[in-house]
Structures are given as structure tokens and as C-alpha cells.
């Protein structure tokens, strides 16, 4: 069967420059159904203030286009921004989803933050936990899940029609790949995950979770293809062996600072974007573990 519109979603990106994050609305061209991927809750760490201006942009887009939100999805537990999934869910409905390995991440960070017993480590904060190969529908579009761990143990790639949302695995070809030095991350695992993504058809559109520009490139970019990655990705183009990649990635990671928002992000995102419970004065506090990471 020749390619129909049903296999080619309409993808709209939203960029949050403070965290270099792309969120997406992925839309079925044949119905009003859509999914929201990797949303951002604005956070000014210095002042300790949150805001929903980025989420409101997505809400306005969904309403202006009369879309029906079926899914609010995360590619992983992000370490550089807070998820706006609960706010979007409250305003727009839809089911939340993430990779089944979220439970591993919840276990590690539940301990690190000494979260109370009210914090379930079973992924029950999400409506759906995706296993490798699971499928889901966005109207007439079919989404399929590839587990792509390496950056974190819970990372996955959503393949929706001819589009792949790769989270933090690959970045733009001139920038490279995601770091692997967070708790549970592993460079060899990332290499193998990337090979899974690069085994998709060459024309598959790849949508990134982040862009940081690159030497000789002044514009942010969010979209590339499997063929472009194979030909040009500076870290992992065709011909770079697993050993070469692991050596490069490990050496590079050793030089990187922790992301600015890792401590606030992880403790919120491990709760599916919900804040920790308030103390008895009604005030919510995030926690910063001293000398843990």
C-alpha cells in the first residue's frame, strides 16, 4: 500500500530556550486526535518559582486547532526541565505515558531524595507504562514504542507513522549524542539503542528533544532524518564502532557539569510532574541532597 496521510503525522514543535527543550504536538491528519510529547513547566530556580506560560502555548495551539488530546507522553524522566504533564492533563485530558523502566528510576531517585512512603515506586503516577514493542493509537495513527535506554534506563523512542521522537539519544548530526553519566546511564547501552533508531527506514523523520546549536550553526533545529544521522552524526555516523563510541562518550561525559536543573527536575519528573507533598504549613519544598551526586 502506498503511503497514506495516516502514516505521516502533522508535527508542531514548541521550543523552550532556557532549557533548550523541544515539546511536540503530534497530530493525526485524518482526525482531531493528537498527542503532546515532553512538555515543559517553566521554572526559575533562583527564585524558586514555577510558571505555565510554555504549557499555555501548547494549550492555545490545541484549542485553536480544535484538537483532542489522547496522550501526554514523556520520552524519559528529564534531568533538565520540569514536566508540565499534570497541568496539561488537568486542562486538556488525555492519558499520560512513559517507559516501563520508570520504576528503576523511581527506585534510585526515591532513595536519593529520601522520598516518603507516599511516593510509589511502581509507575502508578502514569496512566500507561510502555513496554518494548507496545503500540498505541492517536486517532488513526499508530504509535510504536522502542526502548532506547542509555541516557537513562527509562528512555524510549516513540515511532509514530514516519516520525520518530527519540528523546535524549541522538541530537542534530552536527552536535552528536546524549550524555550517559547520570545514575543508570550507560554509553554502550546508548550505542545499541541508537542502532535501533538508525535501523528505521532512511526517510524516517527524527524529532529531537533538545538542540544546543553547534559550531558554525546559529539557528536551533529540531528535525533530521535517519539517513542524515547515518551519514553525518559526528558521534555515531556509519562506520563508528561501539568501542570508539563508548570511549568518546565516556571521555566527554567526564568533562561535563551536571545540568543546572537536574536536582529540581528529577524529583518532580519521577512523580510524573507532580510536586512533592506540601509540608504542614501548606508550602511545597523541593530538596537538594548535599554531596550525593
Amino acid at each position: 500500500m502506498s503511503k497514506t496521510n495516516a502514516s505521516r503525522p502533522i508535527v508542531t514543535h514548541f521550543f523552550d530556550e532556557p532549557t533548550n527543550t523541544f515539546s511536540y504536538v503530534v497530530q493525526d491528519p485524518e482526525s482531531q486526535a493528537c498527542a503532546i510529547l515532553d512538555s515543559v513547566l517553566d521554572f526559575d530556580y533562583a527564585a524558586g518559582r514555577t510558571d505555565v506560560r510554555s504549557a499555555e502555548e501548547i494549550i492555545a495551539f490545541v484549542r485553536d486547532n480544535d484538537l483532542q488530546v489522547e496522550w501526554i507522553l514523556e520520552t524519559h524522566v528529564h534531568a533538565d526541565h520540569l514536566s508540565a504533564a499534570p497541568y496539561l492533563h488537568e486542562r486538556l485530558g488525555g492519558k499520560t505515558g512513559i517507559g516501563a523502566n520508570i520504576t528503576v528510576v523511581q527506585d534510585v531517585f526515591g532513595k536519593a531524595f529520601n522520598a516518603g512512603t507516599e511516593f510509589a515506586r511502581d509507575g502508578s503516577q502514569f496512566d500507561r507504562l510502555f513496554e518494548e514493542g507496545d503500540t498505541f493509537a492517536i486517532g488513526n495513527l499508530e504509535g510504536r514504542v522502542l526502548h532506547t535506554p542509555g541516557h537513562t534506563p527509562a528512555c524510549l523512542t516513540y515511532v509514530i507513522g514516519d516520525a520518530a521522537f527519540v528523546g535524549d539519544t541522538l541530537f542534530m548530526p552536527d552536535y552528536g549524542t546524549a550524555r550517559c553519566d547520570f545514575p543508570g546511564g550507560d554509553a554502550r547501552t546508548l550505542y545499541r539503542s541508537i542502532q535501533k533508531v538508525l535501523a528505521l527506514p532512511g526517510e524516517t523523520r527524527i524529532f529531537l528533544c533538545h538542540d544546543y546549536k553547534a559550531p558554525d550553526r546559529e539557528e536551533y533545529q529540531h528535525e533530521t532524518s535517519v539517513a542524515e544521522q547515518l551519514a553525518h552524526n559526528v558521534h555515531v555516523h556509519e562506520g563508528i564502532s561501539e568501542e570508539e563510541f563508548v570511549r568518546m562518550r565516556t571521555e566527554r561525559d567526564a568533562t561535563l557539569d551536571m545540568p543546572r536543573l537536574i536536582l529540581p527536575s528529577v524529583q518532580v519528573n519521577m512523580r510524573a510532574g507532580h510536586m512533592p507533598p506540601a509540608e504542614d504549613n501548606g508550602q511545597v519544598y523541593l530538596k537538594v541532597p548535599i554531596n550525593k551526586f
Partner: protein
Amino acid sequence: MKTFSLSHSAGAGSPDVAGFFDPRTFSVQYVVSDPATGKCAIIDPVYDFDEKSGATASHHADELLAYVEQQGFEVQWVLDTHPHADHFSAARYLKAKTGAPTAIGEKVIEVQKLWKKIYHWPDFPADGSQWDRLFADGDTFRIGELEGRVMFSPGHTLASITYVIGDAAFIHDTIFQPDFGTARADFPGGDAHQLWRSIQAILALPNDTRLFTGHDYMPDGREPEWESSVREQRNHNPHLAGVAEVDYVAMRDRRDSELPMPKLILHSLQINTRGGQLPEPEANGRRYLKIPLDALECAAWE
């Protein structure tokens, strides 16, 4: 980058002042010593903190200790000018290492009360008992044969004080270098009118008084500097020279409304209102800082 310099004693009653710059927080720490006796005070020492990872370290405090040891000094005081909002105080660490008493201005109690609420510490004694001495306005103290005197300098914080030691004044976050300006006055308890009056009291010191500031932000990429004089400030500070109080306050408030919070304010105050002590560990043995969400105004979204 220049991170150390020594300002020499002008004779009897005048201290040697060694300045140590921390490029990470743009803070200046001082070792103020009496050439006659080798006694010294440490002012505004920094305890290193990496907010990304949550890691602490004592590199800067150890650098001060190494200097003290190398010079053969004896530390008589570990002093803070105010509870800082941009770095952790190393006072507690240095007291443990040297046995010297710690001190700060007595209004720190008001700051403790304010932040006790924000951090929700029902059992925290907001009584200043975390320091060995709380200075009142006009109090004096000794560093060997040098006399130190305390001037209240509220405005940046309500607990800020200036230490006048011989011909040197440690003014911390009131006036910065003459090519930069003055401190912000918009933190909880800050006040631009009060800051103006505190600055006028500093500028009423003798013209040749050596002024040692608490931060330097290296305008136009120049090397760090931290020493000026009353005369230089009067003549050249763009926020002060020929400026009237009403204009200063308007300028200060306008500027402050555009500034983001310092990136460590929520981290720092919970260490510095405790005299530089880390929070008590939780049941798992690990210590945690608390970041209150949506408790402070003035987020910088744009």
C-alpha cells in the same frame, strides 16, 4: 585572573589586609591582621557549593587557613558582615578548624525569623545562638592591638554591618568598586532608603579610609578589584557621586526590579542563617537543603 592581593598596614593601629577572590561567586574574603602581634580575623569566608550537583567543598576556606598558617597568624575572630545570599559562609568550618569565635550583627535574629517561616523550621531557635557573639551598633572588639568597631549598615539586608578596623572598613554589600556601583536592596528585609543612609555613614569616614568591598563583578572584563577609598567612592561611584537620596532610591528600585534573584539565595540563606552549619541529616543520614516553591516574588521570566 588576580585572586589575591595584600593591602599593607599604614603603621600602628592599621591592619594588613589580604583579600582572596572567589571567581565562582565573585566574593571577596579577607584575612585582617595586626602586624604588631600576628593576631588576625577572617571576614566573610566562603564555603564552596556546586548547586548543580549539590556538592560542597572547603577549597577556599582551606586556602585561607593555609595563608594564616604560612604567615604564622593566630585567628581571633571569624566574622560575617551579613547572612549572604550568594554563597555559603565557611564560619562554622573555620571555627571548627581554629577554635576562634564567630560573630555577626545582632539583627541577624530578625533575618532568622523571616527565613524560619519561609523554610518552615518550627523548631529552629531564631535567637542568634548559632554565633559566639552578636554585635550591637557601636560595639568594639580587639584583633591583637587593633581596635574593631561595628557600624550597622542595613539596606542590602537588615542585618548588614560594617567592620571598621583601624583605617580599614569592611563594607561588604553596600558599595562596590567605584566603576560598578552599589548593592541591590530587594531581598526580603532589604530597603533602598536604608541602604542610602548606611552608605552615607560609610562615606562620612575619613577620606583616606581603605574600603574593602564584598563582591566584584569585573565590569568590562577588567581584573578583579576590591579596595577603594572614601574619596574615590565620593568622586567616582556612578550611583553616588552628585546623586541625591530620592534619585538614588528611584534608580535602585528600578534596577532591582529588573534583576533576577541570585542563583543561590534559596540555598544560601538556610546555611547562613544557621551560622554556616549544614542542615541536620534525615533518617537516612543524608542532609538536604529545601527549596521553597513559589514563596519568593520576582522571578525573571523574560
